[in-house]
């Protein structure tokens, strides 16, 4: 998430009038437009000065004092700025559409890994979480998460990529402890009310909504085949309104985790580019709390306490879903720049695909060594583990870093699945806790290990300037003196020559940073611990409370029969004779 990210003094000065000598395009009389088909190369006539001019009468001076066919400097600047914001809006929306498609991937993966007798039920939870969570996010989730966005720590010269409308998100609850501000929650934008009726905010809402739905649909895999549908319905509203939004506010909405850098000198504050923590670990932790509260499926653990397998009913469905998720991830990570004009998207996209590939290979090798056979469902977990892990560091590492951390994720996920299954004894049907929780945490931490300082200058309002082995830290407090100090040090004058270094991990020097940064890992650790404790507490209390409204667990006889007919009233595959051979004995 490039919320409060990049930018420089040069970007800030882009608002001052352009150079006095007008650009040639602005003064030349536009050539009469020809149809493109008569020009070569095709499209050569697109985007000329003619496209910027109004059809003003020749004798009119009221609209454009320079007369017909002239493009003024102001018009030129406005058009360039409008184009920039439009490109960013289009990018954010289209990548958001890609992330929305990931819902289909989740539905296929989770359903394929469950038994045929509950397939319609599992599919329905994945389907309805889209609507339930979205309405919850519209009611208050978005306001809690981003209501105070404009007051978060930001880089010097930072401009909201989607347009100045984002600055309307300026209300929240911040407490001050020992002189340090702690942003706790945003409080503007409930129901996307008229006070935030703006294209920038609506486009941000769409993008963050589909991210929330990703978090929301992770626990449905862990708790599948035994989750009472009515309890699931109220969960759907809750997850869109509360846990993701509050934790997300702390990291992305300008809250206290993002302020760790300015407050306590911990790197750039918690850095989570596209949500290894905010989206995936959050979902994995909710899944852990839910899996703990709901208990294992009947027969999952034998009288001796040993886990028994309950094989999924459609492995090709799982693998198709995994590919859809991997495709959607090209929206998830590169889209989190919220800016198509940020050319970093190329690096992010390549890092994303490399980490996923490395992880699937890591899982392949690990499975051969551990069990002798590369279970396809584990290979799918492996690819997703790498994608989850690269989500936080995708913008900050180089390709070597992406491959290394992805490969490690592919190894970790195998042992995590075995640990959850054998030691924790939480029946996680799809490996959600391991893929999203464990590897989400790994992704957040890996920013503090592998980030190479080439991106994220000023992230969290912290500028880390480096020169001749020495660091100077400038916290952006918005004061003119700070801006001048920053401009002087990064300039070419006598006091200048300092390099503004981006987010850097402790091994950053190996990957091209001028020096390693231990403090960033500190911020990442605080982030991971906060997610594990705060989100788990919220989710555990919720599942215990909601259990009093609607019992979380389906009836025993319904679970044994498969939830399709008892709870949904229809079977997933009525034309097929569903045997129950894959189910272990109920005793």
């Amino acid at each position, binding site marked *: 998430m490039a919320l409060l990210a990049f930018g420089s003094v040069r970007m800030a000065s882009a608002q001052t009038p352009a150079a006095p000598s007008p650009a040639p395009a602005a003064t030349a009389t536009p050539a009469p437009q020809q149809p493109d088909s008569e020009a070569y190369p095709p499209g050569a006539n697109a985007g000329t000065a003619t496209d910027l001019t109004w059809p003003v009468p020749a004798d009119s001076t009221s609209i454009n004092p320079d007369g017909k066919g002239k493009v003024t400097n102001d018009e030129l600047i406005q058009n360039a700025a409008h184009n920039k914001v439009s490109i960013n809006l289009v990018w954010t929306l289209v990548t958001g559409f890609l992330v929305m498609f990931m819902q289909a991937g989740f539905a296929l993966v989770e359903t394929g890994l469950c038994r045929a007798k509950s397939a319609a039920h599992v599919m329905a939870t994945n389907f309805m979480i889209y609507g339930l969570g979205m309405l919850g996010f519209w009611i208050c989730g978005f306001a809690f998460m981003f209501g105070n966005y404009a007051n978060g720590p930001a880089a010097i010269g930072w401009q909201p990529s989607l347009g100045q409308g984002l600055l309307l998100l300026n209300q929240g609850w911040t407490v001050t402890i020992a002189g340090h501000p702690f942003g706790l929650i945003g409080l503007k934008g409930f129901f996307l009310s008229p006070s935030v009726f703006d294209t920038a905010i609506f486009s941000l809402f769409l993008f963050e909504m589909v991210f929330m739905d990703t978090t929301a649909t992770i626990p449905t895999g862990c708790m599948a085949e035994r989750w009472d549908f009515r309890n699931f319905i109220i969960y759907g509203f809750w997850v869109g309104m509360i846990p993701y939004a509050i934790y997300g506010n702390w990291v992305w909405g300008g809250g206290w985790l993002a302020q760790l850098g300015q407050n306590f000198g911990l790197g750039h504050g918690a850095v989570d580019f596209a949500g290894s923590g905010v989206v995936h670990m959050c979902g994995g932790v909710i899944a852990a709390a839910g899996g703990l509260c709901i208990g294992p499926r009947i027969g999952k653990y034998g009288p001796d306490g040993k886990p028994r*397998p309950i094989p999924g009913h459609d492995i090709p469905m799982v693998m198709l879903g995994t590919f859809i998720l991997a495709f959607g991830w090209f929206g998830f990570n590169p889209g989190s720049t919220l800016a198509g004009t940020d050319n970093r998207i190329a690096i992010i996209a390549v890092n994303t695909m490399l980490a996923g590939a490395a992880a699937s290979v890591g899982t392949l090798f690990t499975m051969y060594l551990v069990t*002798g*056979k590369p279970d396809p469902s584990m290979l799918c977990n492996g690819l997703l583990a790498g994608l989850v892990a690269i989500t936080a560091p995708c913008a900050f590492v180089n390709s070597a870093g992406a491959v290394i951390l992805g490969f490690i994720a592919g190894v970790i996920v195998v042992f995590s699945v075995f640990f959850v299954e054998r030691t924790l004894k939480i029946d996680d049907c799809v490996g959600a806790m391991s893929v999203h929780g464990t590897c989400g945490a790994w992704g957040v931490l890996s920013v503090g290990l592998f980030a190479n300082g080439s991106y994220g200058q000023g992230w969290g309002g912290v500028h880390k300037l480096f020169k001749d082995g020495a660091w100077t830290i400038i916290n952006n407090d918005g004061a003119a003196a700070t801006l001048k100090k920053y401009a002087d040090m990064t300039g070419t004058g006598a006091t200048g020559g300092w390099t503004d270094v981006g987010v850097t991990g402790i091994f950053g020097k190996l990957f091209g940073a001028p020096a390693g940064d231990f403090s960033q890992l500190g911020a990442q650790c605080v982030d991971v611990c906060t997610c594990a404790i705060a989100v788990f507490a919220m989710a555990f209390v919720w599942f215990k409370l909601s259990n009093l409204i609607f019992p979380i667990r389906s009836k025993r006889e319904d679970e044994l029969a498969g939830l399709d007919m008892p709870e949904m009233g229809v079977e997933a595959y009525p034309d097929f004779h569903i045997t129950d051979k894959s189910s272990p004995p109920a005793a």
Partner: protein
Amino acid sequence: MKEIKAIIRPFKIEEVKAALSELGIQGMTTVDVKGFGRQKGHTEIYRGSEYTVDFVPKIMAIVVVEDTLVDKTVAAIVKSAKTDSFGDGKIFVSPIEEAVRIRTGEQGEAAI
């Protein structure tokens, strides 16, 4: 009349069918079945949990033949379904009291 039930490896069904056709046997019924014998399946690991694959997929071919054809039929099945490995299957022979062709009402050996 005798009923011959042959539980065989699924990929052998076409060879068995061809062998029986050569004998002049004109009809056959198959059922997809799963089962185990003395080998008791094999052990696998799914997502960290060890388990035994008890029920191995097989095809059960059912033919009803005149008494005089029983030995030849059984021999043909054994020959065509054999791989010499564990899990080749089994053949069961049992008497049939009556047979009726539904379309014509023919009975006995005329109906098979």
